[in-house]
């Protein structure tokens, strides 16, 4: 085998490049069927041909053999003797795949068994070749030169074909030493040039006739490279073309062709040929060792080794060796990258500019010329940016490189599965960093395979569903907001949330309760969980035991985001967002304590600064977790310094006790910030101006809370940091192996002052904080807002315990605050417990006073939930943990019903009693409700007001009905909008006001309102909507259909007020 690394490498690269486009070309050829696009076929043919030509020269017999057979088939297609149907194309595709793999494992290529490919290809050639030519395909001839030398084993068929095309045959003998090496040429180039004027049928090094030292004559040593060449060029022109003495150009005439005695028997050609070509070489190598050492003949040197390895090594061993080789060669092939010359010129230019800039800068510095220094630094700044961009561009590659291969994947798989699928690729020209491109290959393949296997239905199923029998998968790539977006969408069966949820429960990944609380989208996203795979059985097509979780992890490790959207029966969209590059990322610089931390801009949603005066109001504490209410959404807060356990290394000027107190009130930032501003070590030169401003209004500035609102995958949270600095482009550097276990960091970077800053891994931080549940709640709040059509009632509840075992919950919207007080501060006045609180007395109660539950244990500190009822505050003493939760209300109103407890439901696996705060207050302070009783009595006297109340949840219906009836209203109930509408038509005249739920089956509240407002009989009626969560979009939609007012369910007091207002009743 040829050992000249450079030439071999060049050959491999060139061949792989030829192969690069073949796949898509072949697929296009297949599509065209009979109407052959000759250019395209020629393209593929030429590729196979060049590979064959080079392989012969390099001694890569197996590659040559395979390329030769591929070429034969392509030749037939080109001559329109063969119609490229899909079976034949499949064989060709597989052949080219094998060829590529041989090229990638060049060192072991000669030992690889390719017989089944050869067989398949021969079957095609045979079937199509006309009878009289059948023999020729297998028939081998030798060319006997005038001097008696023999050029062995040429396919008669090819010679015949060349002749039939009116070409002349030449056997040209180049001398590797005199004609090529000494003239400074390159054998590959010679072959390439030849191809421009004709066809190379075969090329070999004739080792038998390598001259020996004893040879006399002008060129004592020569290594003939024999090229059998077919061209339309006439014999007399040949000398000029080949640029060698005509002594070595042999015109091949028919007389020179002698039938070879070994016609290839079909199955073993590769092995046979390999041995045949090796054997004489070995003889030569041992027979004339001198020639080897003198002539620059790499070929013979390698033969013994190759032959020996072929003889001795078992296939398994050979494989091991090949992987080794792959490693070496793999690195080699990967290490080179084609770069546009124009781009290189730009780089060179910029490098020149940079040198000039440096000179200017040095000059400016030396002469202490500030102006010049400034100018040159500006210039260097500009050049650096340009340089960075240009260098980035060298790494950018079109995404087509990986998207194109999916046509093949989809084609092969759809054949295998008996599906008909059309693949559309949009945005091939979008460019991505090479590393990212390589890294998303596997996840993308997985997703496309999933779409083909699970997504698209069989043609029959599709037709039954009224869809086109051919499914469509679209791969779309586009730039958006400095990121690359990839969308894989199919119009298949889509994901059925319930099915996924069931499977997830069956696999023990989630519990029934968790699922009950999930939105449709959250259920679909269960497929991202590790250990989940929807395929009923693991097929060889898409399932290999690895699931979507691997895809998600891979994409997240690239700093990407993956989102899923699916409509059952309609299809699935999977959207992936990727950064353009990994090396340089825009980041927000923050600091905690003395250190700075970089926060990737991709994860950053917004920056929040809560002024000192508002910290108390805006930050709420739910259980152990702090949350901030941001535009109606609860956002969990993570304190970075607590998360990372950053120690304070400076002295605390205030008493530590005070600090502790503050921390409890969540104003602990004050002391910490205060210290940072005072600590000189903490303020590096770059932060100087901040330091100054901090001094001016230290108290205010230092008490404010800085929050970076971040999101990563399913997580969204606020990261509390000490300071927010600039946004900078940072260069990501890997950290050492001792820090690999610190998952909180994605790497490190070097800041302008030379110090190192760590880059935070937002998603891992969330996982470290076990944020999942909180964020799920947050997400749920978001998704419910979107899910207008859904008919499940959700409510935000505050869960707590009475004693250690009893679980309770109360509507969150009635809760004002949660406080922790010292038991010693509780006073007993007039048989009641109160605590001094914000300048007043807060009455304290416990559940055992109203309901039949255990009384609270004695403790030093007591958690108190402060409720606000009738504009008065009261405290309910409870036992932690206190948590918020958004749940689907599925209340059992009978089993555990008792005074002040409206019912029970299961939350997180615990039977939880729902506390009816109003009933509790009423029992404890009947006088607070005296007015209502009065109003009710009055109404009974003046004539009843009748309300139509539409609500699908029995729990809410009973609850609200109870309130209303207590206040003297008469209620007509309806279980959904449609029933309400029927009732209204029946008894329209009696009804004074409509109260409706929004999310109901059959007809929702919006539709009901629209009908009422559009019907002249009822348009005068006021409609009050009850909802679990009122989003702006909701309210907007409601207004457009004519809803008069929105009230939150379970907020009895406000509801009553509004109803009275609308009925013009006095309170």
């Amino acid at each position: 085998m040829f050992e000249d690394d450079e030439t071999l490498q060049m050959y491999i690269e060139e061949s792989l490049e030829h192969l690069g486009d073949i796949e898509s070309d072949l697929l296009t050829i297949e599509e065209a069927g009979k109407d052959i696009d000759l250019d395209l076929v020629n393209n593929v043919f030429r590729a196979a041909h060049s590979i064959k030509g080079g392989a012969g020269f390099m001694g890569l017999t197996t590659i040559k053999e395979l390329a030769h057979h591929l070429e034969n088939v392509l030749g037939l297609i080109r001559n329109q003797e063969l119609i490229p149907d899909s079976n034949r194309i499949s064989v060709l595709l597989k052949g080219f795949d094998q060829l590529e793999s041989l090229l990638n494992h060049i060192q072991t290529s000669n030992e690889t068994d390719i017989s089944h490919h050869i067989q398949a290809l021969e079957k095609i050639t045979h079937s199509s070749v006309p009878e009289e030519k059948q023999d020729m395909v297998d028939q081998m001839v030798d060319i006997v030169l005038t001097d008696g030398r023999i050029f062995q084993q040429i396919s008669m068929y090819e010679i015949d074909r060349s002749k039939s095309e009116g070409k002349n045959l030449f056997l040209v003998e180049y001398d590797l030493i005199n004609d090529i090496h000494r003239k400074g040429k390159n054998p590959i180039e010679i072959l390439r040039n030849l191809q421009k004027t004709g066809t190379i049928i075969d090329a070999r090094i004739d080792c038998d006739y390598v001259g020996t030292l004893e040879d006399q004559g002008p060129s004592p040593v020569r290594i003939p490279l024999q090229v059998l060449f077919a061209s339309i060029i006439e014999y007399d022109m040949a000398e000029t073309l080949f640029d060698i003495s005509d002594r070595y150009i042999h015109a091949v005439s028919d007389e020179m062709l002698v039938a070879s005695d070994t016609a290839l028997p079909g199955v073993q050609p590769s092995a046979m040929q390999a041995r045949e070509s090796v054997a004489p070489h070995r003889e030569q190598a041992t027979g004339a060792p001198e020639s080897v050492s003198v002539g620059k003949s790499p070929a013979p040197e390698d033969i013994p080794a190759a032959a020996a390895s072929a003889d001795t090594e078992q296939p398994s061993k050979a494989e091991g060796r090949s992987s080794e080789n792959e490693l070496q060669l793999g690195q080699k092939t990967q290490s080179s990258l084609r770069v546009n010359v124009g781009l290189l010129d730009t780089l060179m230019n910029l490098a020149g500019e940079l040198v000039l800039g440096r000179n200017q800068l040095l000059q400016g510095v030396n002469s202490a010329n500030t102006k010049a220094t400034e100018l040159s630094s500006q210039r260097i700044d500009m050049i650096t940016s340009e340089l960075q961009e240009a260098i980035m561009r060298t790494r950018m590659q079109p995404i087509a490189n990986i998207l194109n291969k999916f046509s093949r994947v989809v084609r092969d798989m759809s054949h295998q599965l008996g599906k008909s699928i059309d693949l559309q690729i949009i945005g091939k020209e979008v460019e991505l960093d090479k590393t990212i491109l390589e890294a998303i290959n596997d996840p993308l393949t997985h997703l496309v395979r999933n779409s083909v296997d699970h997504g698209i239905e069989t043609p029959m199923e599709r037709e039954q569903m009224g869809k086109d029998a051919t499914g469509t998968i679209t791969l779309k790539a586009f730039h958006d907001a400095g990121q690359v977006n990839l969308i894989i969408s199919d119009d298949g069966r889509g994901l059925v949330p319930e099915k996924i949820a069931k499977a997830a429960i069956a696999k023990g990944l989630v519990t029934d309760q968790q699922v009950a609380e999930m939105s449709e989208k959250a259920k679909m996203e269960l497929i991202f969980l590790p250990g989940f795979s929807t395929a009923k059985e693991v097929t060889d097509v898409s399932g290999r035991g690895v699931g979507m979780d691997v895809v998600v992890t891979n994409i997240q490790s690239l700093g990407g985001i993956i989102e899923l959207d699916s409509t059952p029966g309609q299809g699935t969209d999977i959207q992936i967002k990727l950064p353009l590059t990994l090396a340089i990322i825009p980041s927000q610089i923050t600091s905690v304590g003395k250190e700075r931390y970089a926060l990737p801009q991709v994860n950053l949603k917004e920056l929040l600064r809560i002024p000192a005066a508002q910290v108390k109001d805006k930050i709420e504490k739910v259980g152990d977790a702090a949350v901030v209410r941001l535009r109606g959404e609860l956002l969990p807060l993570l304190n970075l310094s607590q998360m990372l356990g950053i120690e304070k290394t400076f002295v605390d000027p205030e008493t530590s006790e005070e600090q502790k107190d503050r921390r409890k009130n969540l104003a602990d930032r004050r002391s910490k910030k205060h210290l940072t501003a005072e600590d000189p070590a903490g303020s590096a030169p770059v932060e100087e101006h901040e330091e100054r401003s901090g001094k001016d209004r230290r108290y205010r500035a230092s008490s404010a809370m800085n929050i970076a609102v971040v999101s990563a995958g399913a997580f969204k949270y606020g990261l509390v940091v000490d300071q927010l600095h600039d946004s900078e482009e940072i260069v990501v550097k890997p950290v050492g192996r001792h820090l690999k276990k610190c998952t909180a960091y994605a790497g490190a970077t070097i800041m302008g002052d030379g110090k190192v800053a760590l880059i935070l891994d937002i998603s891992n931080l969330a996982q470290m904080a076990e944020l999942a549940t909180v964020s799920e709640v947050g997400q749920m709040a978001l998704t419910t807002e979107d899910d207008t059509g859904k008919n499940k009632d959700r409510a935000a509840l505050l869960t707590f315990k009475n004693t250690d075992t009893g679980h309770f919950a109360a509507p969150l919207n009635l809760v004002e605050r949660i406080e922790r007080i010292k038991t010693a501060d509780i006073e007993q006045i007039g048989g009641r417990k109160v605590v001094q609180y914000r300048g007043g007395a807060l009455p304290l109660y416990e559940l055992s006073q109203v309901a039949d539950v255990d009384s609270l244990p004695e403790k030093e500190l007591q958690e108190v939930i402060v409720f606000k009822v009738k504009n008065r505050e009261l405290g309910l003493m409870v036992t932690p943990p206190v948590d918020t939760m958004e749940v689907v209300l599925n209340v059992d109103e009978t089993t555990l019903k008792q005074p002040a407890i409206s019912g029970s439901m299961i939350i997180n696996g615990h039977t939880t009693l729902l506390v009816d705060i109003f009933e509790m207050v009423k029992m404890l302070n009947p006088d607070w409700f005296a007015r209502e009783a009065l109003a009710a009595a009055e109404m009974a006297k003046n004539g009843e007001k009748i309300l139509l109340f539409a609500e699908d949840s029995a729990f809410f219906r009973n609850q609200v009905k109870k309130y209303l009836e207590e206040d003297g209203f008469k209620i007509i109930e309806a279980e959904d909008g449609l029933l309400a509408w029927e009732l209204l038509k029946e008894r329209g005249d009696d009804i004074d006001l409509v109260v409706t739920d929004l999310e109901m089956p059959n007809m929702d509240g919006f539709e009901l309102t629209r009908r009422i407002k559009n019907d002249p009989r009822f348009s005068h009626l006021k409609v009050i909507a009850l909802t679990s969560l009122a989003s702006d979009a909701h309210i907007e939609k409601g207004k457009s259909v004519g809803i008069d007012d929105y009230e939150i369910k379970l907020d009895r007091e406000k509801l009553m007020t509004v109803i009275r207002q609308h009925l013009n009743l006095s309170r």
Partner: protein
Amino acid sequence: MAHETTTDTTAETLEFSTFYVGGALCGINILHIQEINKNVDITQVPQAADYVKGILNLRGRIVTIIDLGAKLGLEPVTETKDNRNIIVNSEDEHIGLLVDAISDVVSASRDAIEPSPSNIGAIRGKFFTGVLKTEKHLIGILDIDEVLKE
């Protein structure tokens, strides 16, 4: 004879950079050492192992600084003006070892190195490739790869 000795030493003489850590005198083959510096600009890495002092910027490379005292199971290195970072090359990565103080470079023939006992002072024997006895001191020769195992 003289000729013979010279060839011997070129083949067998090893040089060790010695330093103090937790009161013990240790040495590292000088060929393993990239450089020795005094860089105080260390960025702390919260949540890292106890023995990780932090990371620093070594001409554009991020280098992990290991507190050799803590890593060897001794007291952590106390901050003094004599502290130095010995930057070694281990498994294709530059790693800094923070030591109490740097001492001399000692050369010795390979034969002079004796197998290490089960422990040297409070340091476990597995961290050493051997000990070198000089007139005044006993130098423990550290096995860098063993020491730097996570």
